[in-house]
């Protein structure tokens, strides 16, 4: 009992002790509100949108996508291409096709404590990331890079054992400082996630090299970022950025209105419904941007369910869903109906595919064709087997937007005689078990957040079907298995010429729209609620947040 008491004592001391500190108010501070908190600040361990938002202000990826969805260099001097000679096809020691890609770290780049950022940091990050003990994200990328040759302090060449059209991007290789972290890692790799300075001392300047660095963390409440003196790029405008977390979105909105926060960030922020309502009342006082993006809301269909395995039933579900009215009425037209998983904003998009405009009569015809002709208590039954046309429909409980959409769909489907039984689950259960172990029996609604021209290998390839044998790895929760799609995915990845890829992408979309592995709903828009005086915030619409250009955020009124 003595230890907790002592701890409480010190904590109490901290609470009262820091009460006297009052910082100067003259400096320019921007306070941003979000509805989730970043649990840890290590750039490579666990990804969450709240976290990448904070980290991108103090850290940079080597490569990323810009607001125009083009690959860019953020922490390198030039994007490697085959043409400029920075990428060279080669043969791996195992005799496979490989590629050598060379990057150069910006010459002035240095960690916040003055130590230059060098290839040693890259080497350490790569070693830690590919090790057996690694708990870094994107293991596949770390292992695909089978070797790194150091040219000098700033230049290095990665050797990949697969040649994909994304050879020029190493978005997920986020450097961590060799001079601070290597010793901790080597001492005990298994415990590294708990002992890294990003957890034990996140305000250490040596951990950050972005326009800002983290100077104060109150876990669960707020993170303060201040200008980083060693930043090599465009100088930032704000002296300080405070990221505050208010999880209840109604309370978040109240905080904005009472002036406790200046801006509500897109994701994770207000629901679109709430943002629309806010725009109704305060549209003139705030600058409100609805950014449509690569957030694909859809319904996964369990193809092992005999009713849903029938393509005609899936098509009927599509025809009986009035997605257009839903998008217009619920989302003010700021979100678009999704023809397939590929966004209309992506360059690989084509509209020459099967479309499912609202057509209940057609849905009924399809259901009758599938044998569900016998209507009892408003629900269709199979004429021969007597099977009831009833499917389970799951989504994340407590997500108001999804619950609204779910009820609209349910109402529309019941009109054509399909019974939909709603059984929602908390997100932790839904994502943590039900989906990943394919324990849902019918329909499951959720979203994929992706990057531009992203190959859906883990989602659509049959090798991505989670099973007991593969330890439930993979994201093909539908159990979708189409040899031609497998083939297309394999070919797509290895086709370096965009012009050659385009027809492949179009074919993939055609198959998606015809076969309906999942039921596409819409591409989500994020809402950014900003004060009128804030400029330079350019929402990207993909998984790489607008915070990667935080140094351009500024006040327009002075």
């Amino acid at each position: 009992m003595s230890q907790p008491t002592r701890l409480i004592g010190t904590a109490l001391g901290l609470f009262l002790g820091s009460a006297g500190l009052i910082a100067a108010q003259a400096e320019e501070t921007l306070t941003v509100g979000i509805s989730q908190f970043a649990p840890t600040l290590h750039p490579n361990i666990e990804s969450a949108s709240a976290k990448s938002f904070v980290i991108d202000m103090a850290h940079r990826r080597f490569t990323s996508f810009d607001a125009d969805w083009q690959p860019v260099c953020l922490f390198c001097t030039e994007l490697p291409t085959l043409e400029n000679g920075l990428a060279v096809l080669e043969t791996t020691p195992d005799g496979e096709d490989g590629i050598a890609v060379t990057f150069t770290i910006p010459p002035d780049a240095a960690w916040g404590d003055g130590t230059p950022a060098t290839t040693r940091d890259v080497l350490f990050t790569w070693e830690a990331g590919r090790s057996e003990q690694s708990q870094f994200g994107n293991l596949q990328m770390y292992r695909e890079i089978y070797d790194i040759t150091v040219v000098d302090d700033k230049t290095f060449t990665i050797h990949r054992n697969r040649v994909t059209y994304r050879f020029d991007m190493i978005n997920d290789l986020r450097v961590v400082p060799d001079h601070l972290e290597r010793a901790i890692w080597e001492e005990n790799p298994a415990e590294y996630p708990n002992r890294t300075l990003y957890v034990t001392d996140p305000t250490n300047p040596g951990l950050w090299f972005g326009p800002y660095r983290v100077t104060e963390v109150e876990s669960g409440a707020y993170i303060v970022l201040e200008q980083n003196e060693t930043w090599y790029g465009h100088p930032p405008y704000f002296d300080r950025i405070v990221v505050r977390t208010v999880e209840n979105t109604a309370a978040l909105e109240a905080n904005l209105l009472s002036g406790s926060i200046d801006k509500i960030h897109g994701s994770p922020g207000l629901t679109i419904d709430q943002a629309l309502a806010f725009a109704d009342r305060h549209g003139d006082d705030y600058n409100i941007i609805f950014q449509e993006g690569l957030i694909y809301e859809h319904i996964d269909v369990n193809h092992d369910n005999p009713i849903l395995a029938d393509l005609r039933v899936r098509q009927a579900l599509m025809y009986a869903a009035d997605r257009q009215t839903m998008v217009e009425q619920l989302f003010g037209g700021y979100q678009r109906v999704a023809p397939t998983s590929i966004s209309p904003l992506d360059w690989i998009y084509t509209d020459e595919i099967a479309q499912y405009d609202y057509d209940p009569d057609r849905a009924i015809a399809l259901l009758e064709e599938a044998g569900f002709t016998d209507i009892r208590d408003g629900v269709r039954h199979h004429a021969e087997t007597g099977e009831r046309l009833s499917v389970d429909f799951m989504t994340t409980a407590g997500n108001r937007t999804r619950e609204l959409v779910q009820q609209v769909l349910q109402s529309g489907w019941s009109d054509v005689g399909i019974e939909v039984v709603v059984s929602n689950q908390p997100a932790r259960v839904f994502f943590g078990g039900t989906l990943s172990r394919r324990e849902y029996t019918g329909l499951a609604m959720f979203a994929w957040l992706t990057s531009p021209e992203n190959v859906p290998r883990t989602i659509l390839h049959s090798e991505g079907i989670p099973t007991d044998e593969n330890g439930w790895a993979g994201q093909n929760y539908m159990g979708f298995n189409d040899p031609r799609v497998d083939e297309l995915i394999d070919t797509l990845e290895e086709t370096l010429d965009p012009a050659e890829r385009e027809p492949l992408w179009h074919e993939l979309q055609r198959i998606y729209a015809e076969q309906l592995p999942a039921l596409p709903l819409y591409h989500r828009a994020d809402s950014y609620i900003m004060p009128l005086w804030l400029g330079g915030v350019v929402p990207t619409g993909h998984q790489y947040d607008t915070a990667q250009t935080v140094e351009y955020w500024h006040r327009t009124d002075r």
Partner: protein
Amino acid sequence: MGRFLVIRLTQGMLVLAAMSFLIYALIGLMPGDPIDEMIAANPHLTSADAEALRQRYGLDLPITERYGNWAASALAGDLGYSRVHSVPVLEVLAPRLVNTLILVGSSVVLAVLLAIPIGVYAATHPYTRTDTAVNLMCFAGISIPPFWLALMLIILFAVILGWFPAGGMLTVGDGGLADRLSHMVLPVATLTLVTVGDYTRHVRAAVQEQIRQDYVRTARAKGLSQAAVVWRHTLRNALIPVVTVVALGFGNIFSGALITETMFAYLGTGKLIYDSILGNDFNTAMVALLFVTLMVLVGNFLADTLYVALDPRISFASRSA
């Protein structure tokens, strides 16, 4: 007294041990484990990786064995790391406990301070309009959905009037005592409003009960004034049920402020428990829940002891029988 203590302590330890297994098993029954979540977040994880991770976290063992391992290291003083916050569990928990203690402590004190005079007044003026009004207010307080009350307070006092901040614990960059206090006003008010009714009703009932007692009638017959009678003879006895109610509620205090903490973005224990359960943060949920259970047991024990201490008519012997 000594025997009473020993019995109660042994019983408490047994209940606590049983509870720890129950909590462990229940959390274990929740579908999905941290590895499932990692797979969901990281699509390229291979089956071998997943298996290795499960082994590292000991998730491949049966639940009894896992509990055994956990209990052994917990008894050895190693409560483990929070999976979400990546720091030792006590480091996450301790400041939260302090925050909750401050929040709930001040609202309990405030509620008791309000409840005693109001309750005594209502009891000594039964069936008057004031009494009825007090009664009505008490019932109103315990009948209002707490998150609804919180939202109303935020809208009125933070947004419309702008008197107090809408949430959080301090203004970043300020954090002075006055600043912290102003952040406490609305959450404390919410908690006080939902508890004061219950306390007042107990005070009122207890005082009324005492007034009917013979010795009070005697005292009054001897010519003591009403006020003197109330303060000297009834209040001490009337406090017993109030103390009991407060002490019995002591443990739930730490988890029960969840709603208020969520609405006001206040970093307390209730929110931590909720987040760690739904965020698959096993160690944190386990320790925090056990701590709360311990506090409930302590509260019950205190209630019994105080009850005996305050009321000379009850002996320890008859209580422990």
